[in-house]
């Protein structure tokens, strides 16, 4: 049996230094390289205990988005014991994107071309902002949604077998596939962005109910504009109606009604 491993994380001051180095442009070139050795003195052993070594995430260069679902499941299975507090710690995710899953991060959320292709200051600034968005976290859920690795874990965590986490509300949705709603969420970039980018997405009951609707209405789910309008309308309704307090049947009926009005 493999000896349990303590997940390594960066020290907080190291994360801040790395962020400053990138922001200044000093480390920009390193984000084109696969090698990024972490020095032991920069790391801390965390309280996260792992039974196996980190898995390899798929990084097909031709269509990296297509591997999101498999990668989310692989990652979540490996880090199933994380709680929400641990899973919102920037030190963990910055370490994982820069070191443990660097190859994946470079393919999926890296920069195109080479460092020399960045001709002027404007291009460099744009590249830096892109990297800050996908390789670093400041601590809010917007950063977690956009971070190369954190987004995969959270996509799976927020959608894994809701009938187990909230049986009273979602008992009737029981499915053989515990990742059914993860698959719906990551089936297109539009669903992920439009559903999770809205404040509504923070409510697990609203999130799963919307995904349940989208899973059953595939034509609707293929339209970015329809999904965007649905979430916008639900947000607007939330101003005067606490839809989070509704029972499942009423919430589903409301989503269907709003969607019907869009079509």
């Amino acid at each position, binding site marked *: 049996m493999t000896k349990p491993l303590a997940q390594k994380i960066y020290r907080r001051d190291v994360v801040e230094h790395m962020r400053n180095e990138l922001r200044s442009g000093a480390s920009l070139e390193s984000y084109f390289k696969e090698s990024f050795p972490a020095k032991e003195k920069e790391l801390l052993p965390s309280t996260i205990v792992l039974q196996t070594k980190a898995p390899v995430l798929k990084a097909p260069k031709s269509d990296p988005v297509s591997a999101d679902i498999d990668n989310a499941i692989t990652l979540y299975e490996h880090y199933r014991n994380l709680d929400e507090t641990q899973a919102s710690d920037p030190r963990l995710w910055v370490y994982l994107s820069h070191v443990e899953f660097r190859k994946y991060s470079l393919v999926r959320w890296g920069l195109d071309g080479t460092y020399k292709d960045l001709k002027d200051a404007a291009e460099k600034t744009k590249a830096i902002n892109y990297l800050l968005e996908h390789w670093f976290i400041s601590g809010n859920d917007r950063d977690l949604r956009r971070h190369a690795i954190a987004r995969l874990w959270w996509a799976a965590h927020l959608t894994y077998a809701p009938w187990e986490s909230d049986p009273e509300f979602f008992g009737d949705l029981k499915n053989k596939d515990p990742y059914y709603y993860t698959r719906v969420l990551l089936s297109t970039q539009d669903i992920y962005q439009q559903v999770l980018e809205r404040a509504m997405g923070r409510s697990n009951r609203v999130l799963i109910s919307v995904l349940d609707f989208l899973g059953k209405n595939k034509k609707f789910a293929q339209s970015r504009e329809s999904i965007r309008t649905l979430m916008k309308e639900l947000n607007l309704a939330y101003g005067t109606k*606490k839809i989070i307090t509704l029972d499942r049947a009423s919430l589903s009926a409301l989503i269907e009604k709003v969607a019907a009005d869009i079509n």
Partner: protein
Amino acid sequence: MKVNSKSYPHPVLGNGDDLGGFFKVEFPYELGREEVILNPTFGLKNSGIEELIKKGRASFIAEVECRSTFFRKSFSTRNANERFSIPAKSLRERVTVGFYICADQDIKGYRPTEPHADYEGATFDVDAGDVLAVGGYSSFVAEKSFDPLRPPVSSFMSITEGFHHEGPMQIDYDQEKITVVLSKADWKNYLEVRGQKAAQGILHGSIVFPTLVDAIYKIRNSTDYEGANWYGRLAAILEAKSLEDKDEFEAAQRILDNPATRSLKGIDTLTSMSDDEIYD
């Protein structure tokens, strides 16, 4: 407790002068290692809404939201005093709690009591989930070791070395903490004094205090930094110390416990001590 006025399709208690009476919420909370306990007490005076709650047609709602952990959940009760428990691991940093009274079912022909003259005699069709009363919202920092009444400045502010060799200090609000960036020359001098107890008041007066005044101004005049950790912590401190209606200058002095006085005492101590005495 803050309340934002909104335009509702029906009169709502607590929303401007829509209805007579009041809906007030006392909101003590406990930050435990395993769980966070919310212990709201709901004070309601409006006979129509009181009657709806008594008949099971409306409930008190506490809506809890934590942007750091994708947490958004509502808790419902018809008791005037209730205890809600949330696993501590589900919350991190700033947590916002909003209080409402919502309809539990569709109410056709709802006739509010004590309405503003504009609504006198009017009836409304209210749906399940519709807000009938707003009690405002509050926030706290869900850090078990963080006591907002005794905040270490280091919990929301840090001082670092910049790239510029000399010149004025700069403030970076885009970090987890407010980051004061000193020139290399200032940083070198800062390192020499920061371990000295007597220098703490001087550093608070010269570096932390002006930064804090600016940060409080930012909180009150901009929504750009709402997601930042420092924003949540500083907002919670202002609320916990009841400094929300104080101007930035006074609020910052209260948080830092009169930095001018401490600076002057520090200078007096340093000038009267020999080099061997100043480190503790």
